[in-house]
C-alpha cells in the first residue's frame, strides 16, 4: 500500500508500530475506528529460528560447525562483532548492524552525554527488549492521574498477552519459570529473613511478557541473542492478526520527519524507505513513535525551537555477585536467559531501586570481562572459573534521578544532553553500598570493581518529556494541537525505577479507550 496524498477524514493515523502503538491500534480497531498505522521500518528485526540449538549445545557440541555457531551467536550480518559501546548487551547481540546509528541519523537525533537507542523496525524496541514488565503502583503517579483506569488496562493486557512471573502490586495467578540453580540459595535465604529486612529489600520473581506454553519458551538460555521461539512478546508478531481486521491498514517504510499544522488537520512530510520524499495530509494523528521521535515531532509541530525541556531516563547500573556455595559447580544447560529474581530496594529515604538478577552463564563472557579491570587473559580465566557462581545484577533508579534535556533546533534536529550530577552519583554510590550489604546478608558477595554505571540512555528506559514540559494532558492530548495525541512513554508523568514498557502499553490502552469513550476520534465517523 502506498501513502495517499490525503487520508480520509475518518481515518486515525498512528505513527509507530511499537508496543504502545499496537495496543492503541487494537483498542481503536475493536471500537470500529478506521486505523492507519505508519512505520519507518519494513519488517521486524528479530526472527524466529526454531532450528537454533540451545546455548549450551552451541557452546559445547563439537558437531556444530564453526559457521553455524558464528551465524547463531554473532548473527547473519555479524552484528555481534560490534564492540566497545557501553550499552545493554542485547543491543550488541540483537539489533542489526548499524540500525542504531541509522535510527539516530535518519531521525536527526544528536546527543552529548547520552546514548539514544532506537530501531527502525516493525514492532519498534520490542524486537530487542528483555520483556521484563512491571506494574507501577498508585504512588508513582500524580494524585489527579486516573490510576484505576490504568489498572483496568493492566488487567486487560494480562489477558491479551502471555505473561509469567509475579508482581507485588497486583495479585495474579501466572505460571513461573523454573528457578535456576544460581538463585535457589538466594531465594531460600531471603524467605528466612525478617519482615523488616524484606521491607527495604524485597526479593521476588519478576514479571515477564513471555509465553511459557507448549509453543513458547523452551529454556534454551539464549534470550540475549533474541528468542528463537518468539516466546518473548514482540509487537510485530501481533500485527498480522490485527491487519486481518478490515478497518486496519499498515504503511511500511515511511519515516515521518515533520508534522505541520494546517487549518483542517496536519501535513505529514518525510522520507520513504526507497529514499523518495513524501507529503500527505491527515486530520487525526496519534503519536506512538517512541519517546524521542514523538517528542521531536510534537516540538516541531508546536514550533518550540531551542527551548530545552527535561526528559527522564531511569539511570542504570550493573554489578556481579558471587555465591561461594556454587563455586566449582556446573552451569545450568537448560535455563531462562533473562532475570530469575528481582528486588525492590530502598536506596535512601527518597529513592528506591529495582534490581534484576541474571545467571551470568546466559550472558556472553565478552560482555562480562569488559567491565573487569584485569588483563584480558586474567579476566577471562577468573570469570570463566566464577561463571557457575556468578549472578549479574542490573539495577535502575527512578527517572527523577536523571538530568537530561532535549531541544529541537530550527532545522528539526533533536539534541539530547545527558549528564550525571553529584546527586545522581551519590544515589549510585548509595545503591552500590545498599545492594552489596543486602546481598551479603543473602550469602552473595559483590565482585570487587564490578559495579559499573551505564551512560544515560544506554539502557534505554526514557520518556516523560511531553508530560513534564506541560505539553500534553494526562489523556495524551497535545495542548494547542487539536486531534493530535501521544501515547508512548513520552506522556508518562514520570519514570519509575521499574521497567516502563508495560506501563506505557497499559497507559496507551487507557488513553485509546478514553478517546473512544469520549468520542473524541469517532464523532466525525457518524457524520
Amino acid at each position, binding site marked *: 500500500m502506498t501513502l495517499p496524498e490525503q487520508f480520509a477524514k475518518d481515518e486515525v493515523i498512528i505513527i509507530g508500530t511499537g508496543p504502545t502503538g499496537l495496543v492503541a491500534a487494537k483498542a481503536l480497531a475493536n471500537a470500529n475506528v478506521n486505523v492507519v498505522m505508519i512505520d519507518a521500518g519494513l519488517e521486524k528485526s528479530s526472527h524466529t529460528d526454531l532450528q537454533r540449538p540451545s546455548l*549450551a549445545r*552451541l*557452546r*559445547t557440541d*563439537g558437531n*556444530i560447525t*564453526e*559457521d553455524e*555457531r*558464528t551465524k547463531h*551467536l*554473532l548473527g547473519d550480518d*555479524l*552484528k*555481534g*562483532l*560490534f*564492540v*566497545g559501546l557501553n550499552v545493554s548487551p542485547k543491543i550488541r547481540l540483537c539489533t542489526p*548492524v548499524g540500525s542504531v546509528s541509522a535510527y539516530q541519523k535518519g531521525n536527526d537525533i544528536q546527543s552529548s552525554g547520552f546514548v539514544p537507542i532506537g530501531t527502525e523496525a516493525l514492532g519498534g524496541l520490542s524486537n530487542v527488549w528483555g520483556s521484563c514488565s512491571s506494574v507501577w503502583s498508585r504512588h508513582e503517579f500524580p494524585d489527579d492521574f486516573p490510576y484505576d483506569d490504568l489498572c483496568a488496562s493492566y488487567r486487560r493486557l494480562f489477558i491479551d498477552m502471555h505473561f509469567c512471573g509475579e508482581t507485588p502490586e497486583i495479585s495474579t495467578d501466572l505460571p513461573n519459570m523454573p528457578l535456576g540453580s544460581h538463585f535457589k540459595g538466594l531465594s531460600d535465604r531471603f524467605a528466612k529473613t525478617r519482615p523488616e529486612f524484606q521491607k527495604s529489600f524485597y526479593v521476588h520473581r519478576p514479571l515477564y511478557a513471555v509465553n511459557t506454553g507448549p509453543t513458547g519458551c523452551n529454556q534454551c538460555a539464549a534470550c540475549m541473542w533474541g528468542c528463537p521461539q518468539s516466546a518473548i512478546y514482540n509487537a510485530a508478531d501481533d500485527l498480522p492478526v490485527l491487519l486481518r481486521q478490515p478497518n486496519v491498514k499498515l504503511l511500511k517504510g515511511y519515516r515521518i520527519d515533520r508534522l505541520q499544522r494546517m487549518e483542517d488537520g496536519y501535513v505529514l512530510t518525510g522520507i520513504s524507505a526507497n529514499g523518495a520524499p513524501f507529503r500527505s495530509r491527515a486530520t487525526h494523528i496519534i503519536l506512538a513513535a517512541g519517546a524521542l521521535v514523538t517528542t521531536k515531532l510534537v516540538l516541531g509541530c508546536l514550533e518550540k525551537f531551542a527551548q530545552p525541556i527535561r526528559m527522564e531516563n531511569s539511570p542504570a547500573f550493573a554489578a556481579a555477585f558471587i555465591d561461594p556455595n556454587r*563455586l*566449582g*559447580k*556446573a*552451569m545450568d*544447560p537448560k535455563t531462562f536467559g533473562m532475570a530469575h529474581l528481582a528486588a525492590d530496594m530502598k536506596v535512601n529515604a527518597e529513592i528506591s531501586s529495582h534490581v534484576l538478577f541474571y545467571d551470568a*552463564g546466559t550472558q*556472553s*563472557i*565478552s560482555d562480562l*570481562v*569488559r567491565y573487569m*579491570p*584485569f*588483563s*584480558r*587473559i*586474567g579476566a*577471562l*580465566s*577468573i570469570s*570463566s*572459573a*566464577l*561463571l*557457575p*557462581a556468578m549472578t549479574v545484577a542490573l539495577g535502575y533508579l527512578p527517572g527523577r534521578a536523571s538530568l537530561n534535556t532535549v531541544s529541537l533546533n530550527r532545522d528539526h534536529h533533536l539534541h539530547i544532553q545527558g549528564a550525571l550530577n553529584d546527586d545522581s552519583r551519590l544515589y549510585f554510590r548509595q545503591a552500590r553500598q545498599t545492594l552489596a550489604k543486602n546481598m551479603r546478608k543473602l550469602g552473595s558477595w559483590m565482585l570487587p570493581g564490578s559495579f559499573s554505571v551505564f551512560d544515560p540512555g544506554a539502557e534505554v528506559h526514557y520518556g516523560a518529556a511531553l508530560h513534564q514540559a506541560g505539553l500534553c494532558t494526562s489523556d495524551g492530548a497535545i495542548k494547542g494541537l487539536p486531534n493530535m495525541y501521544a501515547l508512548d512513554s513520552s506522556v508518562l508523568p514520570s519514570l519509575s525505577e521499574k521497567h516502563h514498557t508495560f506501563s506505557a502499553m497499559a497507559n496507551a490502552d487507557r488513553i485509546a479507550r478514553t478517546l473512544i469513550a469520549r468520542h473524541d476520534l469517532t464523532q466525525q465517523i457518524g457524520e
Partner: protein
Amino acid sequence: MHLLVTGANGYIGQEVVRYALSQNYQVSVLGTVPEDFSECVTGYDWRLDQPLPERLPWKNIKAVIHLAHQWHGDLKVGEQDPNLTGTTALLSCVRNHSIKRFVLASTISARPNALNKYGRLKAKLESLLDGPEEVSARIGLVYGGALKSMWGTLVKLSGISSILPMVDPNHAVQPIHIRELAYGLCRLATKDSLQSTRYTLAAHNSISFRDALKAIASAYHGSILKVVPLPGSVLLFVLQTLNKLPGIGHLFNPERLLGLMGLPVLDSKDGLAELGLDIADMRDGIELGQISRRRRLDEAHTLLRYVSSGNLAPKLSHYRLYLTGLKINGLQAITPLPRTVRAAPALLRFCEPMNQTPLKRKLELATVIYETSQQGSKKLYPYKKVGPLKVVATLILNGTVETVLWPCRKLLSKVFWP
C-alpha cells in the same frame, strides 16, 4: 582530452598516466614510456638535455604535465643545468603551438634561497612560467604507491630500527597521497579555467615529520618507532660517511634530507578547494592497500593468540571475522605492536592498555571471536563440574598475577598506548 606527460616513468609520472588513462584521456609520453602502459600510450624519445622530437602531435595536445627531472652531480663552470634548458625548450614549443595549459611539477620548498639544490632549481623553473595558463604545482611530501623516490627512502628509513635519530623531527610536513596527487595534477591540466598560477598540492593540515615516520613504520613494518631528535649537521656527516662506504652506495641522499630541513608550510586550502581535492590525513591514507591487509592479519594473529592464551590456532574464518569486525567498528587503523609482543603474544599481559584505546576495543573484538570459536566456547563455559578447589586455585593464581602485574601494566600501557 589529450595530455602530454614528461617524466612519465618516474614515481609520480606512472601514477599520473594511470589516472589519466582511467579517465579516458589520451596520453602521449615525452621520454621513457612506463612498461605497464606501453600498449596504451604513444611515446616520443626525449631527455631533458636533448632537443625536442619534431613529429610531436602538438595539434591535438591540450595540456602538458611536466614532471621530468634529471638528477646530476655538480655542474662544471659554464655548463647549463639540463633541467633548465630542457624546460625552456619545452615551454617555447608549448607557446609556439598555443597549447592550452602547461603544468610544472614543483615543490613546496621552491624558493630562490632554499636549503637544497632542488628547491632552488624549481624556483628558477617557476620563474620561467608566464601567463595565466602556465601553472606550477608545489607538491608536498608524497607517500603511498610503489616504494620509489623519497617515499621509498622513508619506508626504508623507518624500518631500520625501532629507534630512529632524525633531524628536526617536529618539523611540519604537508603530505599528499600519490593518488591524490595524480588526481590534482590531472585536474590542473584539464580544468577549464584556473584562478591562480601557483597551487600547493599538499595537505592543508600539516603533521610533524615524526608522526609521518611513525605512521609509515606502523603501516609498513608494524613497529612502534621512537624518533630521537638529532642535530642536523651530525646526521649529514654520518650519512655522507655512510654513502662513501662500499656496498651501501647512494642509499641515503643528503640532498633529500636538506629538502626536509628547509620545508616551509604553505597554505593550500583555497587551491585544493578549487580543484575539488580532499586530502586525507596521512595516518589514514597510509592504511590503504595490500600492505595494511597483511599488517592487520598479523595483528589478528597476535591478539587472537593472546586472548586465547595460545589455545586458538587462528584459521581463515577467524581472520575474516576479525577483518569484518575492524570494519564494523571503524577500527581499520593499524595498532603498532612491539616486536616482542608479536613474537610472544602472551607478553601483552604485561602492557595491556588500561584506558579506552583502539587496542582495548580490538582486544574486545578478539575476545568475542575467541568466545564464539569451538575451542573458546568449550574452554570458557564450565558446563561440567570443576570442583571448588580447582576454582579457588585458579582465582588465587590469577589474582596474584594480576596484582603483581598491575603496576607494570600501569607503567607500560602509558608508554606504549598513550
